[in-house]
């Protein structure tokens, strides 16, 4: 073990940095930022830096699997402030599922636009009666000639109001056992019978929605995997979702903000960052953050040579969630009376202020599988303790 990236990787890093210096102009005044970003992504994908696991004909970079190169690319993009892969339901959740399970025509039709954010997707899993116990969903789909007819309700559906399409779990085999009666189905959000009702979140924004589905028709072949295989198909996206929660670069950015707050705020005329109690608490969080960072690095490195990283991978979501909450707690301590106010107007998930993160950090403990559900998974799969609901 030497942490040395090796000549090949150092050369690769230089290549990426050179590409960025040439192709990404940070903060170009004026101009259409979105268009700039789109043009940059297209170029970076052509060079094989983005969407590497996807074939070129589906809008990918088509590169051999190399977790380390991906890490280098992410680091260099972050350094340059350049946009990376689009972080959306379509690109991070649907696309990998289609790649593993989709028919060729489905990949042809949907992948490129999903990856590049040209078509927006939402995830229709949760229902009022089915959250943690997702397999108890009741929204049904029945085949009627050449179309599925869907009836039911989804809830907490992020970005449904902006979405062009939904990938949904629906019950197609009502007589089969709970987990075997579910199918993974795609539908057009503009189809007749789709009603979206935004829900206002505690942060004030409306990210998630209720979605009502009344006799919504979707073509018979807009099913991913076989009938009744939807549970298995959906597992692909859930594992991707878990891996993406509060990843180390995001935690590092939060910590940096935390230190900024400690420099800005004072107590008895002294910056908080000079007060021993605050120093101790930041340093303690730093310990957790470092462990998370190098644990993830270790998993990436082990993966790249086919070693099994073991229990650590199951822990990532809960670890990231908890660190995010420690940071929120300390930041709340430091911002004091600012915490009496709502987040400043215009703050968003992309550009948060401290109050926003105090609230937002709680959603991380829910979305994509709650912290208690993570604990069940860790206890059962990593520690081999008796399963929930099963007698010993």
């Amino acid at each position, binding site marked *: 073990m030497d*942490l040395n990236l*090796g000549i090949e990787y150092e050369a690769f890093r230089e290549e990426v940095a050179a590409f960025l210096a040439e192709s990404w102009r940070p903060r170009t005044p004026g101009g259409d930022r979105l268009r700039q970003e789109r043009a940059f992504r297209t170029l970076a994908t052509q060079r094989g830096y983005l969407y590497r696991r996807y074939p070129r004909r589906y809008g990918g970079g088509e590169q051999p699997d190399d977790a380390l190169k991906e890490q280098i690319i992410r680091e260099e993009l972050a350094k340059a402030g350049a946009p990376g892969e689009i972080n959306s339901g379509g690109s991070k959740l649907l696309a990998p599922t289609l790649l593993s399970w989709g028919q060729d025509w489905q990949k042809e039709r949907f992948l490129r636009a999903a990856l590049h954010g040209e078509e927006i997707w939402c995830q229709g899993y949760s229902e009022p009666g089915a959250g943690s116990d997702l397999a108890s969903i009741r929204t049904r789909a029945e085949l009627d000639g050449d179309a599925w007819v869907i009836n039911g309700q989804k809830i907490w559906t992020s970005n449904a109001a902006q979405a062009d399409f939904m990938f949904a779990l629906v019950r197609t085999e009502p007589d089969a056992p709970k987990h075997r009666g579910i199918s993974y189905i795609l539908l057009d959000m503009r189809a007749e019978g789709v009603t979206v009702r935004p829900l206002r979140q505690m942060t004030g924004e409306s990210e998630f929605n209720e979605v009502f589905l009344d006799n919504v028709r979707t073509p018979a072949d807009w099913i991913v995997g076989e009938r009744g295989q939807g549970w298995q198909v959906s597992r692909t996206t859930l594992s991707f979702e878990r891996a993406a929660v509060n990843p180390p670069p995001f935690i590092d950015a939060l910590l940096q903000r935390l230190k900024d707050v400690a420099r800005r705020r004072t107590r008895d005329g002294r910056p908080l960052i000079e007060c021993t109690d605050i*120093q101790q608490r930041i340093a303690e969080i730093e310990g957790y953050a470092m*462990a998370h960072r190098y644990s993830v690095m*270790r998993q*990436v490195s082990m993966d790249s040579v086919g070693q099994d990283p073991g229990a650590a991978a199951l822990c990532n979501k*809960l670890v990231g969630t908890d660190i995010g909450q420690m940071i929120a707690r300390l930041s709340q301590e430091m911002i004091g009376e600012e915490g009496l106010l709502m987040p400043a107007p215009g703050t968003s998930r992309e550009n948060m202020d401290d109050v926003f993160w105090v609230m937002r950090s709680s959603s991380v403990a829910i979305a994509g599988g709650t912290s208690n559900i993570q604990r069940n998974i860790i206890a059962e799969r990593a520690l*081999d*303790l*008796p399963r929930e609901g099963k007698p010993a």
Partner: protein
Amino acid sequence: MNFHLSDDQIALQDAVRSCVRGIGKGQLHRAAFDSADGHAPEFRDGLVALGALGVGIDQDYGGLGLKLVDLALVCEVLGQEAAPGGYTGHVLAALAVQVAGSPEQKQRWLPRLADGSSIATVALGGAQGWEPEDWTLRVEDSKLNGAGGFAVGADAADLVVVGLAGGGLTIVEMAPPSVTITPLDGSDRSRRLFDLHFTDAVADPLPIAAGPRIYDALLVLLCADAFGGASRVMELTADYARTRVQFGRPIGGFQGVKHQLANLLCEVEPCRGLLWYAALCFDLDLADRSRTIALAKAHLADRYMHMARSAIELHGGIGYTWEYDLQIWVKRAMFDFAYGGTPGVLRQRAVRLGCLD
């Protein structure tokens, strides 16, 4: 990137593990813990046979020529197995001679330290403070006078490497009456502690002031012990939770217990990467070496202690007895917590070294 163990490193850990487990019907940790002097000559011979005493010593001097990360991997296993003895002090003394010694000092000591014909320990700080900036002893006219604290296994050592004011280090041979050793009633009976007193003891200072480096190495090896110990306690406790029955089922089926254990795993498991990184910081002499290592030791000491405490609780009454082996790891956690500086002290050190910049 190469941030995973090589086959050789995995083999080294396996060899050390079988060495410990092969002795005394797997009861080495218990036998040494309860014995009068804590010595385990058979175990030391086993380590010598493996070449483990010379892991970090250059091949020119009869060692294996490996790095601190490899020493840490050995210490991780020793921590897992609660293995007795002063391995850490011995290899740190050897490392000190190797990085800071004159050619004559190396020639004289390293081959003997590698093959175990001489045994060494270290005395780096103590009650007045553990950090190199706190060291106060001075060599005058090649003589050392004063006290050195908390030397592990000093009764079996032929020499000690002592930390000096200004971050220097000196070799002192254990020649009574100029060096007297007083056993302490240490709580971790697997690593027996001694106070040293020097009266005009002959000192042979190392020419390079490598104190801060050796102190960092000490902290890394304590991290390794703590990670090994914490992961073993995790395993013991999960095993216990699967087998102990109350209310007609294994206690590990109660969600309160499951969640407590899952939380603990989330504290301990990420530390494997942290340990590796701390060791690599040392081996590669990265710019953030000392502050990263200080934070890592603070973090691991806290995690180990919390794991150990929770383990006692989850074992119920049996966990609080002398007879049950869990207490041996609890005492080791207490050792790793305090030795070299407590988490609070080390976090303050990291702050001084710029971890908040």
